[in-house]
């Protein structure tokens, strides 16, 4: 009698164990269940923080006496002129010497078909510390990608394949979109409706700069004036 029951229990136990083994192979894992390997079909989603993205788009030391904020659209010709004619020289003379802290804010205008895409690439590049390279490439080749829409090609041209792989993964992350939206909301709070919109802050006082009439000599004299205050 006992042996008969023992056999029966053994068979039930083995059957249950077999069923559990099969289910663990075929059923999807419970959310939160620890897995030894990430699933092959879903790539790892990087989650950069807003602060990380903003820091990546900023240049210089945070403690610099002058803060220059630039609300720009990568497809806007005037933003290109401002960047090539003024920003680059400001970087060379004042950002690199710790006198100016330069912050780029994205303000892609709906009238430009590829500006949001360009902003996303630039923000993704900012996370890996390659914003400046991508920004320069986007502005210098603006006419080309502005016409063809091949923004990715321009970005790939200044990054290594490994960097490009990381930037591609970041491009799709929702945090990038959130960072752009955050910049746009900030711009609207400062009544920005056109690009480029430049704000210079010194000793707590913020002054809007006329980007259309600005030139490097005027900017230089203004920065020097502020530094003497």
């Amino acid at each position, binding site marked *: 009698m006992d042996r008969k029951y023992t056999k029966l229990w053994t068979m039930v136990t083995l059957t249950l164990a077999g069923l559990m083994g099969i289910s663990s192979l075929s059923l999807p894992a419970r959310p939160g269940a620890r897995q030894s390997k990430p699933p092959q079909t879903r790539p790892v989603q990087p989650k950069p923080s807003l602060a990380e993205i903003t820091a990546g788009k900023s240049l210089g030391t945070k403690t610099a006496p002058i803060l220059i904020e630039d609300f720009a659209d990568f497809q806007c010709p005037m933003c290109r002129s401002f960047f090539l004619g003024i920003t680059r020289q400001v970087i060379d003379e004042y950002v690199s010497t710790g006198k100016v802290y330069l912050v780029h804010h994205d303000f892609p205008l709906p009238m430009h078909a590829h500006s949001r895409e360009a902003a996303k690439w630039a923000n993704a590049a900012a996370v890996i510390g390659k914003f400046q390279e991508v920004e320069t490439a986007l502005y210098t080749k603006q006419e080309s990608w502005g016409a063809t829409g091949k923004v990715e090609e321009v970005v790939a041209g200044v990054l290594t394949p490994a960097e490009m792989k990381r930037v591609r993964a970041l491009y799709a992350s929702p945090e990038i979109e959130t960072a752009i939206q955050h910049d746009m909301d900030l711009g609207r709070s400062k009544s920005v409706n056109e690009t480029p919109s430049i704000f210079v802050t010194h000793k707590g006082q913020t002054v809007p700069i006329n980007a*259309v009439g600005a030139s490097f000599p005027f900017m230089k004299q*203004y920065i020097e004036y502020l530094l003497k205050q």
Partner: protein
Amino acid sequence: MDSSALPAESSARPRWPRHVLLAGRLILGAVFVYAAYAKLREPWMLFAMAVNSYHFLPEWGATLVARGLPWLELALGLFLLTGWKIRWTATAAAGLLGFFFALMLYTYIKNPDSGTIHCGCFGSGEILGPLTLARDGALLALALIIAGGSFVTRARRA
């Protein structure tokens, strides 16, 4: 005979045009003084950038205007407030405002979508648009009325 006729003639004329002219020149004078103050309280480079955005002068010209115009506006404003050589002061003010208005109108018509050109009228930050044009047009009309009125008053006195 002549001395008794003059007061009778002047009392027969209505006084309100004189009062209107006085109020007008005080308003215009105050506007000019404020415009000068708004520019002088800021570093001249900011106004120079506003002048430069009109693209009608080379950079050295914009620098000259940015450094000199606020003082001219201050002088005109004070002359208008005190009534010193009012005919010529009002004419100069009308000429200056006429030039500003024509330049602003031309720039606005040429770049109707550009909201990045700063008017520069009362310091930095004000965007050139229909409202700034309407305001400058109204000031020009006021300056013309004062200039015309002061010439007419002078002719009547003579």
